[in-house]
């Protein structure tokens, strides 16, 4: 089958590889119909995530049709059309029992490695390095899904792929970020980052009752999309100081909630190859948390800072005194995608949202390597790429 493989920094190739097969009794094999390239994939492309190996199959935003199931699969069946969450959960451990799927304990074959890096490592992820389990991703014609009863959302036959594809990652991610922000009716929320995740955050904030959303980025194309969703867009390259701007807009009070949808893998993530280096580097910064610093500084007293943006290491100069002094609540983490897929599908079916508004490019898999290059170089034009198999 055809698959997009990571071959090294700034090097993705389409390769002919073997078809996946059932390896465990709760697995299923899915014939992929549509997959997307995510902002998180860029961090792999740019070589910032350690423990990638040449030839690893990329992709974690995937949907398709079940063509084979293992003997322990009970809930789904061959022929079902499913969206696959990017994080892999077992459905049985105590965290899965609490619907904290991204904290699952039983899906990462390299759990000991994850524990070394993060003290208590979380769930495995599709197509996202060997620290996260080394699972082959979904930018391919077929994908193997472990514990498919837990890691799938069956969608109605006949629905357009593009309308439901982002239930795999960015829509639940944006929604959970808004839930974590503790929004009350009438609130003002500030959102750093207007990438696909930020766009889903903005829509979700309004769904949950925010009255005013202030969106911050430096790309006008991205800010304009945010404005179309009803947000006030601020280009941080055009203003004197973002904190000054936010103080002015909120009468000196500060936003009730601040959401960091930037993360810093893209910038200062210098966790290069080795795990022990991270442990050894105590006291050294690994990430560049500008947006996070601002979010903490801007936030109203007693407010909430919600962090869907990914952080990977030891952060420098975080204004923790301000967070303490203002009695802030901080919430963060990988998305518990499985928890939100079904209720968000209902919102799509009720026409409350069509997440496909972020798509700018539709290609077939042969164009995959070229799109990675464009996505990396032209942030303002290439926003969200979907691959039709």
């Amino acid at each position, binding site marked *: *089958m055809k*698959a997009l*493989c990571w*071959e090294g920094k700034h090097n993705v*190739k389409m*390769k*002919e*590889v*073997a*078809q*996946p*097969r059932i*390896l*465990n*009794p*709760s697995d299923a094999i899915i014939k992929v119909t549509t997959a997307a390239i995510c902002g998180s994939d860029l961090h792999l492309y740019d070589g910032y995530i350690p423990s990638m*190996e*040449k*030839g*690893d*199959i990329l992709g974690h935003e995937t949907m398709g049709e079940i063509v084979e199931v293992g003997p*322990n699969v009970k809930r789904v069946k061959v022929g079902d059309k499913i969206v696959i969450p990017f994080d892999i959960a*077992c*459905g*049985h*451990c*105590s965290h899965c*029992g609490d619907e904290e799927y991204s904290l699952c*304990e*039983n*899906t*990462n*074959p390299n*759990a*000991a490695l994850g*524990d070394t890096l993060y003290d208590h490592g979380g769930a*495995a992820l599709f197509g996202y390095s060997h620290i996260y*389990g*080394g*699972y*082959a991703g979904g930018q*391919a014609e077929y994908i*193997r899904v*472990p*514990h498919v009863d837990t890691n799938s959302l069956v969608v109605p036959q006949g629905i357009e792929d593009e309308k439901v594809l982002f239930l795999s990652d960015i829509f639940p991610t944006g929604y959970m970020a808004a839930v974590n922000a503790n929004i009350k009716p009438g609130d003002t929320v500030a959102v750093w980052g207007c990438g696909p995740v930020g766009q889903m955050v903005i829509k979700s904030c309004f769904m949950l009752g925010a009255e005013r959303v202030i969106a911050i980025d430096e790309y006008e194309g991205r800010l304009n999309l945010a404005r179309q969703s009803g947000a006030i867009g601020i280009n941080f390259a055009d203003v004197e100081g973002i904190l000054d701007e936010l103080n002015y807009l909120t009468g000196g009070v500060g936003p009730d909630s601040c959401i960091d949808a930037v993360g810093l893998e893209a910038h200062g993530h210098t966790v290069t190859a080795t795990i022990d280096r991270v442990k050894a580097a105590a006291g050294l910064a690994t990430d560049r948390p500008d947006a996070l610093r601002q979010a903490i500084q801007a936030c109203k007293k007693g407010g909430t800072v919600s962090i869907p943006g990914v952080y990977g290491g030891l952060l420098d100069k975080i204004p923790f005194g301000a967070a303490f002094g203002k009695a802030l609540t901080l919430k963060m983490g990988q998305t518990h995608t499985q928890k939100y897929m079904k209720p968000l599908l209902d919102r799509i079916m009720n026409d409350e949202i069509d997440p496909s508004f972020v798509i700018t490019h539709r290609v077939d898999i042969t164009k995959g390597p070229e799109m990675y290059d464009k996505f990396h170089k032209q942030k303002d034009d290439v926003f969200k790429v979907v691959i039709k198999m």
Partner: protein
Amino acid sequence: MAKTDSLRESELQVRKPIPSKYFNEDSSFHPASVLISKPIEEVWAFLRDMTNMPKFIRGLASVQVLDDKRSHWVFDHQGQHHENDSEIIAEEMGSLLVWGAVGEKNQVGAVSLERAPGGRGTFVSMRTSTDHEKGKVTGVLAWYFGGDPKSASYINLRRLKAYMETGEVPTVEGQPNGREQELKH
């Protein structure tokens, strides 16, 4: 195993230290430990049945029980093969199990169990020994009695936990990748 008397139950609520006398080195560190969301009775019964060991110990292909104490272990991993007889050296029902390769005093494994508070399952600790005579362990046995025994124990404990909680051990061995064609040449 039935809950018998209160003394017995209180014994299950303390994890016995794995006695150092079974190992050829002293360690001031705690052994590798996990919490398994299953009752201690179930975890004990699973571990006491040696035929279950291959379900979670990496590189262990099969175990054949010879009698109540002895069993025959076959390791097969990455092209390497090793066989030996193993026997149970010490056993305290529900809380401590020590086993070792017959005639090879440096190959010992031990687990100790404790009923976790709050009805959350069972704490399981595991310790395995290194083979000092060979300097470092290589090949098949490295996976089990590994060069770094605490890591090897932890890996096997996580596999035990996954198997007991989900019925399978997570794996990516045998999945496709873009390396295969190149390796064939």
